[in-house]
């Protein structure tokens, strides 16, 4: 009896030792979770999730403080990828949030008074201009966060949906008649 206990304990210790050694020896250096989440977020920096930007939202998700369905620009696909990363079930976009087509802000340059408020609001420095000078938006850099729209005192900024062109056109999902469920 004692022998058996000793043998089992010995085996247990030996195997535990091997596992412990392997855990250190073969440790995979991985990006911290926050970086991985941040890499999935679209970096719009729009704050619709209620956090000050994508990174803070990523940190909140990593800490378990925020849900994964608060990012409208990331859309369904983003939620799916977050769910996959975190090993949870995907869910629909949070209440009151809606996914919009990708847009960029456009300044009506005739109306702009050069107040710089939008420049201060832009999270990615995509607006060029100076005080009392006309401002303009760099469409390639604009993330479509809409943060510049509200501060404008003369309402000269509006959002324009980005149109498909030959560079961004995509082949559609092929029509497949098999699953014609009534």
């Amino acid at each position, binding site marked *: 009896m004692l022998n058996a206990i000793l043998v089992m304990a010995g085996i247990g210790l030996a195997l535990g030792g091997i596992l412990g050694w392997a855990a250190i020896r073969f440790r995979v250096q991985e990006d911290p979770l926050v970086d991985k989440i941040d890499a999935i977020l679209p970096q719009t920096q729009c704050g619709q999730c209620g956090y000050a930007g994508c990174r803070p939202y990523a940190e909140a998700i990593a800490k378990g403080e925020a849900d994964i369905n608060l990012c409208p620009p990331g859309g369904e696909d983003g939620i799916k990828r977050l769910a996959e990363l975190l090993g949870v079930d995907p869910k629909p976009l949070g209440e009151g949030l809606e996914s919009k087509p990708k847009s960029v802000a456009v300044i009506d340059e005739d109306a702009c008074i050069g107040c710089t408020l939008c420049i201060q609001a832009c999270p990615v420095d995509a607006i060029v201009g100076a005080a009392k000078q006309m401002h303009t938006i760099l469409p390639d850099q604009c993330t479509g966060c809409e943060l510049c729209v509200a501060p404008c005192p003369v309402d000269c900024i509006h959002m324009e949906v980005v149109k498909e062109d030959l560079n961004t056109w995509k*082949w*559609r999902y*092929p*029509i497949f008649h*098999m*699953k*014609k*469920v009534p």
Partner: protein
Amino acid sequence: MNGSPFTLLANNSVSAVMLKVMAALIPGIIAHAWFFGPGIWVSLLLCSALGIGLETLALLMRARPLGPALKDGSVLVTAWLLALSLPTLAPWWLYALGMLFAVVVAKHLYGGFGQNPFNPAMVAYAALIVSFPVYMTQWPAPVGVAPHGVGLGEALDLVFAGQGGISPDAYTAATALDTWKTQIRMGKPVADILALPAFGWGGGRAQELVALMYLFGGLLLLANRVITWHIPVAFLSGLALTASLLHAMNPAQHAGPVLHLLSGGAMLGAFFIATDPVSAASTPRGKLIFAGLAGLITVLIRNFGGYPDGVAFAILLMNVAAPFIDAYTQPRVFGHKPGREDRT
């Protein structure tokens, strides 16, 4: 939006493929009817009718369109393969249970045509042999060997009205593989065993000719490019090699390769069942491994296992491994270096 190509190969469809498979089965079926009596027509028709009925039912329950799935003819291939694998003249409910397993459990519960990980006919066969071993070994004896030949009318009686009229002993006989197994256990010498009426010149009496007709049908499939050579060649080689090896080691215990090739479900399995593309491995090297191992396992089950034939279990076992085999035998893509590259 539908893009190119705008032309498709003419006369090419799933139903055409299935029809070719069924046509290739016909020589074997005719030989079967010739040597074992017309009972096979009953089971073929019964299984086909059951198959269409069950397929319709399953499709209705799954709310899928009936037309395309019934037109593809895959259920008829399953029905015919099962009818040819089950003993002829078995009671109707055995066929019904088998088709239920094949169509509903093995096919539609897994998502229908193209989704089944296992060959439906073999799932049904396995389920039946585990549940009803006695019925599953009562094969009709070849015409001339049996004391009582069964005509078409009697066959219908036997299948549908139960076996009240005549005792199974009158028209059934143990198959060659079965006989070998029981006689070896009883310690009979090989020469005496092979002289028993169950054996012909190479395999089971008459069975060997049916097997050759299946081989002929299989060659037709090859010629029509419905199947590739890999699976039949590897399956039969694996079977013959293993059998030869065991036979060489202990001839008094293990039958030679010819008996193994020409009895039981070897030929039917090699050309018609293991080649089922849905459940088999699909890369060229994968097919060789898949079928070679299936042949090996078949002989191991026949020689060491409790069941007389091992084709069904061997193929089912290898079905499990098929995705894994495929993953490790991906062919070299044009312009890539030989050897396995890291798959991200």
